[in-house]
């Protein structure tokens, strides 16, 4: 396990008076991929939202050794944490290219932004074809690609990915995960991945956590969870 890029210590999260997470200790290694597995309602999305400062939390969240407690979402994002939310967060009435520019809103280096737009078009040629099109008219898969592309415009160190495969055809999902793998290997982007498709997630990840009703029930190398009898039966289905 390389040095931790992101680390949560005793992370609890609340929606009003309702507590959703109970003392999670999570780690994402520098250049690593960590996946959170668990049933619907286990608190996976909340864990990502906690890291982005979008829910009320107690406990500590450290990124590059710095505590994020009390930070506003906008400032957390500016550290290089790109959150790709469930539902993709597309700006539907803006064009594809405007969506990408919005993704780079925290940067000021104009020339580098334009070259980054071309670079992400390299990963997603379909988006280049549709650059002038209203983003709301894209298909689900294209919108997911746009969400990833928008996140990349931040030049993130860490990506928080919430169900990237949701609602997509199996072939599209395969392409998407191929791209995630490339981003991780070639661009050294670390990832915290929440995914229903446990098999795909464990393939990509080096580290995995299993959550049930807001509590960690299993922690370990992705390989170990894959081989665990209970995980296999409950989440991999064979």
């Amino acid at each position, binding site marked *: 396990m390389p040095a931790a890029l992101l680390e949560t210590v005793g992370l609890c999260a609340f929606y009003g008076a309702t507590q959703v997470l109970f003392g999670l200790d999570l780690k994402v290694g520098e250049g690593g991929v960590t996946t959170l597995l668990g049933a619907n309602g286990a608190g996976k999305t909340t864990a990502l939202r906690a890291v*982005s400062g*979008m829910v009320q939390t107690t406990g500590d969240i450290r990124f590059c050794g710095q505590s994020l407690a009390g930070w506003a*979402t*906008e400032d957390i*994002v*500016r550290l290089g944490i*790109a*959150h790709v*939310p469930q539902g993709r*967060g*597309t*700006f*539907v*009435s*803006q064009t594809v290219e*405007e969506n990408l*520019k*919005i*993704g780079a*809103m*925290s940067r000021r280096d104009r020339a580098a932004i334009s070259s980054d737009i071309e670079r992400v078009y390299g990963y997603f040629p379909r988006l280049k074809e549709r650059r002038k099109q*209203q983003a*709301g*008219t*894209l*298909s*689900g898969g294209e919108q997911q690609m746009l969400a990833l592309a*928008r996140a990349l415009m*931040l030049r993130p160190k860490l990506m928080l990915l919430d169900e990237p495969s949701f609602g997509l055809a199996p072939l599209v999902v395969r392409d998407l995960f191929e791209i995630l793998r490339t981003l991780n290997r070639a661009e050294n982007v670390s990832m915290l991945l929440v995914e229903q498709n446990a098999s795909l997630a464990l393939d990509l990840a080096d580290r995995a956590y299993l959550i049930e009703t807001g509590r960690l029930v299993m922690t370990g190398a992705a390989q170990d969870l894959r081989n665990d009898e209970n995980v296999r039966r409950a989440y991999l289905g064979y």
Partner: protein
Amino acid sequence: MDLFLHQALAGLATGSIYACLALAIVMIYAAINHLNFAQGEMAMFSTFIAWQLMQWGAPYLLAFVGAAAFSFVAGIAVERVLFRPIHKAPVLSHIVLFIALFAILNSLAGFIWDYNVKSFPTPFGSRSLFGNGLVSSHDAGMMGVAFTMLVLLYVFFRHTRIGLAMRAAAANPESARLAGVRVGRMISLGWGMAAAIGAVAGIMIAPVVFLDPNMMTSILVYGFAGAVVGGLTSPGGAVFGGLAVGIIENLAGTYIPYVGRELRLTIALFIIVAVLTAKPSGLFGRAIVTRV
């Protein structure tokens, strides 16, 4: 035919002011999802500031710029002090606060500057342009100022970084935050700009309707009508709606017997009811194509 054209042109001139007000309403609606009922009173107050500056001896241009700048800052202050603390409160709380702001500004202006109707200067003169007294040089100048401002705003929103950030913050605040957009600042900026736009509209229309604390009441109704016609979610639609309302108002006043001067305001209300009945989202509201 000449009469028709001149009446339409005169309608277009007042319509340009309705368009500005409609745009200001839509900008704030986009930012906080509530209708600013005090938009007209804010504009009225700004106009008094310009008048006061001129009373103190400032030249017209300085008074114009000074009042717009004051309004920009005051708009931001109103958002920060009054509306940010209650941004999660229900609609009714917002309405009460808007009405309070309306009443406070109206009586404060009356208290400071009294309720006597004052004349307001125009830099464009008031010559009649076509010899029949329908379109004056002030009308032409007013149109010029309003259209210039609208074009500048279009360029700002379409082609600048901050303009795009403001659109993003209004369209999808949560997602904008995740892209690092400082949404709170964008909302403040929207309020400031809306207030400044209102100030320009007030200063331009004051020579026509004269200056007093109630000068903007009917203008605001026309502004609302314009915003509703265009659909509350579309800035371009608001501008179109404001212009259309101006023209319709003027033509109806000329050609429909009984309407005359007295029933003109009814037309605005009629338009609001008609649009809300026939096409609640307005002509250009949220015409976004989405795939399921």
